[in-house]
């Protein structure tokens, strides 16, 4: 399973490295959301600073949808999914590999967004370990839940409109807990932030386990 996961993740990342869709479309989109939300809030520095964690996570969530759509689109070529299915690779391995590839892209994206809010909103992360832990946990949850829903909507003609409707409400707890944890990290208030990790941990674990179990049946349904 792990070996298969590495193979699938390597394949997805190689495709990404060659096509550069994530680099030239997803990352600029995330920055665009950052700027647009700042426009909506207005130039007042203190309210921008106050909204920075929320803006960060909303931008991340929207970009996650794009990353998932991309991850599904990679498999949507003629017979690609059948090829993957027939290759004898463990479905759990495919799930883990695709989630790892998406997760890695999301981590890079968060680095960009971090730089973005530091630069644009003039905020500083005071409790770095808290921000990093929250981001890592959230990334696992976002990638696993996202890939699952991606598989659910794969092969549908209405996939592009259906996926955000399905996946965004599911990811709402991550948005909530992530932005609260980051708010605490920005304020230097570690104690109130760790509480929110208690939402991110079960979210990540549950979707990881459920994905490993359900990806097989889902793939047959696609």
């Amino acid at each position, binding site marked *: 399973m792990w070996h298969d996961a590495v193979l699938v993740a390597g394949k997805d990342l190689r495709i990404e490295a060659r096509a550069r869709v994530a680099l030239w479309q997803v990352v600029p989109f995330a920055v665009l959301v950052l700027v647009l939300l700042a426009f909506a809030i207005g130039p007042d520095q203190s309210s921008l600073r106050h909204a920075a964690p929320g803006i960060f996570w909303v931008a991340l969530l929207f970009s996650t949808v794009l990353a998932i759509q991309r991850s599904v689109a990679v498999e949507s070529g003629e017979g690609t999914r059948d090829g993957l299915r027939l290759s004898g690779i463990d479905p759990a391995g495919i799930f883990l590999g695709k989630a790892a590839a998406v997760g890695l892209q999301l981590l890079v994206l968060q680095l960009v967004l971090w730089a973005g809010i530091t630069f644009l909103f003039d905020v500083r992360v005071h409790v770095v370990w808290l921000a990093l832990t929250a981001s890592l946990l959230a990334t696992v949850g976002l990638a696993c839940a996202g890939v*699952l829903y991606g598989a*659910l909507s794969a092969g549908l003609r209405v996939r592009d409109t259906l996926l955000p*409707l399905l996946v965004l409400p599911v990811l709402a*707890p991550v948005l909530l807990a992530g932005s*609260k944890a980051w708010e605490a990290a920005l304020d230097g208030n570690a104690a109130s932030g760790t509480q929110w990790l208690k939402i991110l941990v079960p979210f990540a674990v*549950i979707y990881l386990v459920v994905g490993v179990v359900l990806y097989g049946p889902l793939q047959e*349904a696609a």
Partner: protein
Amino acid sequence: MSAPTMTRRPRWLTVVGLLGVVAMGFTVWLGLWVTPPDQFQGNLARLLYIHPAIATVALYWVGLVAAGGSLLYLWPRTRSFFWDRLAAAAVEVGAVFAALTLVTGALWGRPVWGVWWTWDARLTSTALLLLLEIGYLALRRVPAEPAIRARRCAVAALLIAIDIPIVHFSVDWWNTLHQGGTFIDPGFQIHASPSMSWTFLLGFVAFSLIFVWLLGVRYQVEVLQDAVGDQELEVSLTERWSEDTELVGAGTNAPTPGPGGGAP
């Protein structure tokens, strides 16, 4: 299996529906005329005879049937379209009840809290539940083979089911951190007076019966829809057949598609 035999409405369902209507009538009568107005909220408290009952159906009964049905469909030994249709019916009825929960809550919240909507934990999680259910129904509308659609929807329902507790806890915390709990527990109304508590209980019975009835009716609509889908396919196939035989001629009856553009 011919469609009509499957779709005849069972007698028990009609009985449940009638009982539900009667119980509902009594709830309305007791709630609006017999029970006294509340000491603190006056006539506004009358909404509490229906609101908690609707919410109970929307959250627990629907969750039980939808998650249970989906699980039983995915389990190979109990796999049957019965469970798939039952779960789908439950989600659709659940969306209606979740919307009703929000509407009745807002109607009560406006005079009591002074706002239609507040970012209370229960309100927020119920609204998210409604959105998740709408997502499921959208997925359900996507045309696909019945077995594929059933499996896809079962997985979606289970994913939603595990998300709900997480959503609930997260918004609970979010709320307690930001604005003190504004939710007023309706439970304290129960012991106010015997007529009030009986009306309150009767409301639960009435809405539960209505839920079972709607679930049954919706299930049958699902069966009919599938039957219509099958028949449409048959009809269009027969049409193609006759077209082809006309084109090819009376000598052959094989449905080989003729070369394109031959039709006048």
